[in-house]
């Protein structure tokens, strides 16, 4: 269950024996996972598999919903499992940021996007001209017009809101995007554009990505490594090709067989 990657590089995120529990109930257990720069690691599973709990714990947000997180998650030398609020904020501004399933819900509905963007940067010490420049660059990178900054979250489409959330990550210059079902609320043609964008950012900026999804086909187009989860445990972890073409776990085979394929009957 070890991670294969460039042996010289230091992992950006290093998870060891991370357990998320609600009371006595273990909802998510990641024995070992290292995520390197520029790498996309996907956590795949069905509802209740513990994939989102794992992602939130990696972000240091596991205890917000009343869960208890044990073990360690090292990001830039900080163990986010028992980090202080100040440490966590620094990690979120520089190392990793969340792109969630419902972008509109993630954005404060009472603020225009421009103010939201400035606040996000201010949180992490970027102000004034520097902030404006970064926001402008980020928007053009995700192909959003500047005038979108005058809109409220409900005045933009779901796809635009998701682009905006990704733009915030770009403006903050984080090293890793943690994406929780980033496209499952979007239409499939918009999904394709967002997936392209995420992949381009990875290549251009060597951004890492931890992607949570129920959609194995989607994951298989983007991820370098796939972690298959079921009932809170990792049932298989391997490179994309290993998992897709020589799966070891019965459950992985079951998942692969269940994915509907266009043109399967012709």
């Amino acid at each position, binding site marked *: 269950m070890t991670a294969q990657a460039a042996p010289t590089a230091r992992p950006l995120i290093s998870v060891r024996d991370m357990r998320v529990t609600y009371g006595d109930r273990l909802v998510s257990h990641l024995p070992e996972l290292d995520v390197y720069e520029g790498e996309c690691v996907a956590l795949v599973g069905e509802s209740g598999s513990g994939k989102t709990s794992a992602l939130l714990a990696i972000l240091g947000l596991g205890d917000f919903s009343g869960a208890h997180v044990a073990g360690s998650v090292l990001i830039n030398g900080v163990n986010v499992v028992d980090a202080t609020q100040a440490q966590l904020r620094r990690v979120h501004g520089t190392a990793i940021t969340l792109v969630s399933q419902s972008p509109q819900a993630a954005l404060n509905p009472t603020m225009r996007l421009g103010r939201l963007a400035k606040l996000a940067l201010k949180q992490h010490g970027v102000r004034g001209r520097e902030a404006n420049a970064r926001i402008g660059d980020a928007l053009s990178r995700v192909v959003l017009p500047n005038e979108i900054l005058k809109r409220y979250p409900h005045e933009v489409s779901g796809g635009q809101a998701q682009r905006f959330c990704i733009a915030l990550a770009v403006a903050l210059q984080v090293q890793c995007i943690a994406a929780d079902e980033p496209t499952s609320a979007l239409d499939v043609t918009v999904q*394709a*554009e967002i997936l392209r964008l995420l992949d381009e950012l990875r290549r251009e900026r060597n951004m890492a990505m931890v992607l949570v999804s129920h*959609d194995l086909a989607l994951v298989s187009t983007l991820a370098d490594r796939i972690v298959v989860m079921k009932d809170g445990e990792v049932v298989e972890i391997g490179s994309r090709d290993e998992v897709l073409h020589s799966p070891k776990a019965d459950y992985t085979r079951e998942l692969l067989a*269940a994915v509907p*394929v266009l043109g399967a009957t012709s």
Partner: protein
Amino acid sequence: MTADLLRVDGVTLSYGKRAVVHDVSLALTKGPTGVALVGESGSGKTTVARALLGMIGPTSGRVMFGETDVSQFTRSERAAYRRTVQPVFQDGTEALDPRMSVGKALAEALSVSPDAHLRGAAKARRIAELLDDVGLSSGIVDRLPHQISGGQRQRVCIARALAVRPQVLLLDEPTSALDVTVQSKILELLRRLQQEHSLTYLLITHNLAIVESLCSYTAVMFAGRVVEQGPTREVLMSPSHPYTASLIAALPRMGGQIPTAVGRADVGFADSGCSFRMRCPIAVDACVSSPELASIGGRHVSCFRADDVMLNPRILNSKEATP
């Protein structure tokens, strides 16, 4: 003159003054068969289904049940119609009364079915039969909806629809709230029931990959209009409308490349002329007027450039095609 069971005939549907479905025609024949209605959110798929259920009347055009206009039904005709056409929705949690056990929910449906005369043991037998038909054990009868899984709830919804011995099931995203392993089992069930009960399906879905297993005919909707319709295999394997092509190109394929975006996805639609032209990678000047739904290559397409797409699908991806 026609063997159509149910026909949507040039129907336009409005909410208030706003028309959301324009001039849609579809025919459902006697089963086992299926018609799929695909398209993105807001394309009008569900509104068409609501019209078929009589929940919304057309502002123009007709919904025909055999030779009768659905809007001209007498009370008893309407009741009979509602037994013939049964809906199954996306979310069993919302579709079932949370206070009603599985057995009660089925008994309630039976009370308006051709089996309404059944009492006692015979009624219990029929309920067990319905549950068995959808792959549930009769031990589940006393459970409440929240005490069973999402897949089981969807099976109960299907059993409830079958209780009135319908000919048509309107399946509105029947599997999109379910995990994939559950989805594949529900699809298998729907396939079996379609054959065994000679059912006609109208399947509404955004998931093109599940269409083929249940429906031999597919209509693709965009911005309230059918842009392409025809035999499923032809429409999905060699699309001739750029929108259909963009839907297919956008589907992630196992182990494949990142899906391609054909044209631009997130720019809304045009109010006049071809509604797809703002997104279309091969739009031309003519597209400011509305293309008719015309017959080409065994299907109906509304696109001035359908011939070009059929001849050379790659024009949709080529750089020079981008306006």
